[in-house]
């Protein structure tokens, strides 16, 4: 089999994942997209391992590592999302903006974020 097929598949998978990470609003879907990207990398690792005929099969070994770490990561990630959802009643990434720069106290015409006070109120509740 030509190397192009798995490589193109990996690129498509990675781009789909990237799109999901950058554009989806639900935190769970973002985590799923991260999985897609990881698997695109795994696919590349396996494909190139075969194509390069590596005697030690470093690519396959590394893939196993990645799968293990991805499992752990998705576990922790889902736990965090669950905690956030319980805490805030939402897992919408667009609304989790606690680290945003507030309006300039010395500058009344600074950017106003109407969502911020609401979030604070939710956090307090």
């Amino acid at each position, binding site marked *: 089999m030509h190397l192009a097929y798995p490589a193109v598949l990996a690129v498509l998978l990675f781009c789909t994942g*990237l799109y999901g*990470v*950058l*554009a989806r609003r639900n935190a769970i879907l*973002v985590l799923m997209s991260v999985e897609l990207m990881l698997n695109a990398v795994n696919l590349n690792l396996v494909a190139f391992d075969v194509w390069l005929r590596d005697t030690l099969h470093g690519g396959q070994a590394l893939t196993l590592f990645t799968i293990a770490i991805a499992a752990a990561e998705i576990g922790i990630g889902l736990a965090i999302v669950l905690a956030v959802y319980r805490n805030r009643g939402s897992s919408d*990434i*667009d609304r*989790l*903006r*606690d*680290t*945003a*720069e507030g309006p*300039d106290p010395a*500058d009344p015409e*600074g*950017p106003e974020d109407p969502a911020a006070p609401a979030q604070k109120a939710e956090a307090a509740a």
Partner: protein
Amino acid sequence: MTTTTLAVLVPLLPFLGAAAGLLLGRRAPGFVRPLAVLPTFAAFVLAVVVAVDQGGGKAIDAATRLTPTGSVPIELALHLDGFAVLVAVLVGLVATCVQLYSTGYLRDDPRYTSYAALVSLFTSAMLLVVYSGDLMVLLVGWEIMGICSYFLVGHYWETPEARAASLKAFLVTKLGDVPFLIGLFALATDAGAFRITGVVQAALTGGIGHPTLIALLLLAGVAGKSAQFPLHTWLPDAMAGPTPVSALIHAATMVAAGIYFVARLLPVFAASAAAMTVLAVMAAITMVGSGLAALAQDDIKRVLAYSTIGQLGYLSGALAVGDRGAAVFHLLSHGAFKALLFLAAGVVIHAAGTNSLTAMSRMDGLAKRIPDAYWTMTVALLALAAIPPFAGFFSKEAVLSAAEHTALGESQIAPSGAGWTVLIAGLLTALLTAAYATRLWLLAFRGRGAEAPDHGRQPFVMNAVLWVLAIPSIGFGLTAGYLGDWFDGRALTPSVTTAVLSTGVALVGGLVTYAAWRHTSALAARTPMGAVAAHPEGDGSLVEEEAIASHTEVYGSIASAPDPADPGRLLLGPLHRHAATGFHLDAVYSALFVRPVLAAAGLVRFLDREVVETYVRAAGAGPRWLGRAVRRAQNGNVQSYLSALLAGSLVLAAAVVVLANVTAGS
């Protein structure tokens, strides 16, 4: 010990007393009073010993050079002649009296320690001026007196009057001191010496190149220090200081320093007829103007302040006709009776609870409450009005007969025009002096109305000091026959013409004022006025501070009161309004100096606030806008951060590829 050693100790002892008082004052409060009084008293005793040793004979000169100082040598020199030793005795006597009086007057004052140390330092500086034989050393004492005067006038710095007065005293005297310093340098360059003997020698042999210029420059400093027209305006305001300070500094010693300086360097001034004429005119204006102003004042101490200016005018008048013996003779007797007047006025202010003559003229029995002050003040006022046989009569006669000699051409030191000016102004001032002395006495001690408040007995030490000073006020004139030998050898005894004339006009002045008072005093009962600060337990300084602070509020002016029962108002007529403000000289100064300076300060503030700060604000605004732009990126959305990260890595990757191709191609 030799006379020279004793003379060195005289200024040194009060200086050491001042230093010790300042150092020990906090740790050992019990030592403050002895440290204030004893060194001053010891200096007085030593000054008497030095005077007896010197005996009015040949001048004693001693000098030591600490270090070579370039072209014109500066030496620590003593010059003890009859003038120096007698003035030193006066300074020692008045300073001792004032220190003793202050222990009673400022009994409960929290700042007594620094006050006493400053008075000691001041005494030491004055004694240095008196004994010094070198102009630069003299200048050191001169300037120390200036700064001590600033601090002491501002003793009640809680009151705005005292703060303003101390600043005014300092600035006005400095205005004279700058030309004075330049004059000293010019004089030393011309004469080739700072030693007074050398300078006088050069002046007598015609070695001074520009006598008129130098004399006029020096006169500016003298006018500032001795409160002569037109730099006299600080003295009446300086009455916002404590009464003992007024007695020591603004009557007996510091203001005498200018006169004493001219007396020391009289040959330099006599070398220029123009300078002598200027001095005579200055003295005449000062005398007459201050006499008129004194008639209109309401504050008892301001009356005395204007009287001091007038008497200093007599002294400059005597110098303008070239008779320094008469000048220093009047300086000595004036120092004694004016110190007495001020110290007695302090007792009166304490007992009456006010410094306003208007309020006192509505009090009954003030004289009975304070018999010591009443009698001694009467003596001093008679001496001031030059009624024989009190001290003021003989010394003023010495001045007037010197002026008469010059006017009639019997003495060639000064132009006869100067003589006439001084003589006529002097006789006119004798009239005015008697008038305001009578007014002061009548208003203060012959009041009608409510009973004077009882502030208890005055401290013994204050009354005792008054009687000590009363002795020279009564008897000092009798030494006129002997003192001539101590000075330049000219007779100081009065001549018949001027004696009859001046005593006559003095009696006229007194009687006219008495008649005016009889006429106006009936009005006093109809117009109740005046406020009294009642502190039966407090010391004199507390009462005085409140009296000064409340005068403007009660009467609307620091100087005068709208009192129809004031004989001065009847005597001066339409002049009263102008005389009360010192003939608007303060307004002139305010227009000439104060307002331009304030306008310049406003301009500087505008330049600083509006021009310089605009640049600073602009320099800050640029980074602030930049920062705001960058802050906009921090929106808290993780996905946008990631997008930026991705875009950045793509750009980097593209750049690496392009660069790799470019380097590979080349």
